[in-house]
């Protein structure tokens, strides 16, 4: 069993345990499971000229390890801002963001960068692959930035898992949207992040490709125990998650905590 599979089995076991105990947040050893991500009264206020515009207005959310959580809400309700704050791309104005036990709100920009490098994988609506690089180098880039050496075994497993082994020499402009998103997902998970934050990953895809990508994310969650938080406008896509958070006007109005 390779390390990927071992991690996966452990995470899946934990997740199943969690479900079997009716979300009691206790592992089978009786230890209390801690959220991989937790926000406490998080505010994010943007300043436009002399006007303060609150994008988040006191968000409290818990994400448990191995969960697949969907976030829904109308445009402008703060979904993307919340994802950025959760992943340390943006700093919360007030409140606490705990990622794997680290409080992002008290960290410097450099420290958040290091944390993001090791614990967070992002997937974007527009794929955001580097156009000058082929798929292989787009994926390897994440490992390169992590600077702990290229892991060919992990790379191969991920590439095969995502079914892009035959497209590695192709540049983004030579691939379909679905293929590009699979490469983007591979880039996000190749460094074994604790959590994958996906911002409308199917927003630019047709129905068939969307379904393939969603199945892939579900499979990563199920088979590898990958914690995933996904923003979507589509209720059918949201249904792939274990739990759906509903946001409105910068607040989570439903599904914020594990029951």
């Amino acid at each position: 069993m390779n390390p990927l599979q071992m991690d996966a089995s452990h995470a899946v076991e934990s997740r199943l345990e969690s479900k079997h105990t009716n979300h009691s947040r206790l592992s089978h050893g009786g230890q209390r499971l801690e959220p991989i991500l937790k926000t406490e009264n998080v505010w994010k206020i943007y300043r436009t000229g002399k006007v303060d515009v609150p994008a988040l207005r006191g968000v409290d959310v818990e994400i448990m390890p191995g969960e697949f959580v969907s976030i829904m809400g109308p445009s402008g309700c703060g979904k993307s801002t919340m994802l950025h704050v959760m992943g340390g791309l943006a700093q919360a104005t007030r409140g606490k963001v705990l990622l794997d036990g680290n409080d992002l709100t008290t960290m410097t920009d450099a420290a958040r960068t290091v944390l993001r490098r090791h614990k967070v994988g992002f997937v974007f609506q527009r794929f955001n692959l580097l156009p000058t690089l082929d798929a292989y180098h787009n994926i390897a880039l994440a490992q390169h930035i992590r600077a702990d050496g290229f892991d060919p075994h992990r790379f191969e497993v991920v590439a095969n898992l995502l079914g892009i082994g035959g497209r590695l020499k192709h540049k983004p402009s030579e691939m379909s949207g679905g293929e590009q998103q699979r490469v983007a997902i591979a880039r996000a998970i190749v460094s074994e992040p604790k959590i994958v934050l996906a911002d409308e990953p199917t927003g630019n895809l047709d129905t068939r490709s969307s379904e393939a990508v969603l199945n892939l994310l579900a499979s990563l969650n199920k088979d590898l125990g990958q914690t995933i938080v996904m923003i979507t406008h589509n209720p059918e896509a949201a249904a792939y998650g274990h739990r759906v958070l509903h946001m409105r006007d910068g607040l989570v109005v439903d599904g914020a905590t594990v029951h």
Partner: protein
Amino acid sequence: MISQNVLHRPLRTFITVLAVAVEVTLVIIVVGLTSGLMFESAKRTEGVGADIMVQPPSASIYMQFSGAPMPIAIAGKLSQLQYVQAVAPVLIQFNSVNGLEIVYGIDPETFRAVSGGFVFHDGHDLQNPNDILVDDVYAKSKKVKLGQTLHVLEHDFHVAGVVEHGKGARLFVLMPTLQEMSGAHDKASVFYIKNDRSDRTAAVVDEVRELLPRYEIRPLKDFISLMTSSTLPGLNAFINVMIGIAVAIGFLVIFLSMYTTIIERTREIGVLKSLGASKGYIVRIVMSETVLLCLAGVAGGIGLTYLMRAIFVRIFPTLTILITPGWIGRALVIAVVGGLLGASYPAWLASRKDPVEALSYE
């Protein structure tokens, strides 16, 4: 990723590399031209074959800038010094018609005694007052033929011979003629002294110093080392200004190129930041691309320099452009440092981009 990024916009890359190449070429050619002219001039002065050169007090080593204030009778006194084998007085005039050249007014006999005589490609030595000798380089570049009339210093000369280059000047006339033309009767610009043995130069220098205190007395073996840009007033400043212009070209082009690159790649920078790339990582990428562009520019610049030299020398055969490894190295450093300075602000700008804003950049 660095090379891929550089190749992504081939036209921009080409223009940037070309600008750096022009910068490098400008530096090497300007320095090579000035030092080449001085080096060539010094080599010709050395080629006279003398051991010592005597000039009037405070005279420049650039003999064309000195007048003719020394009585020619000094030659007689110098000839009587111990160890002195021959003394050749030379009157020097600066000719600016049809190019910049110096004309030596010589006494054929004493000049031959010091220099060992001309090697004639064609014709014969100076015999008549209006005779002129031209060296082979001058003859080739100006298409001068034996027997033709050559208008020099507002005077018509008869080309009596074509000689091997390297004996002080490219044009030689009889001293009395030049004295008459320039109103410098019984005057000379320089005395070339030939010793009976070359290892007695120091002793002869001491003797001449005693005879002619305050005169400029220079052993010819040190002459080339004296012919540097620092000895010619204003030349260093000129070279520095030209280098400054070259650096400014490189700096501005790299700045503009990298700045537009950063603006164009804003979203990519956001992606890199989302992957956890530090500010240092992004600065390194920008700087690495800059170094790559500069090195390509330097390589192109070196090639362009040799091409320019070949063209210059073909058009102006009397020109000497000295390309030295030292100045190629300096041009490399100047180009890379200038490029890095030009890229520093764009790199800083890139490293400080807000990742969220960068990711939403259209």
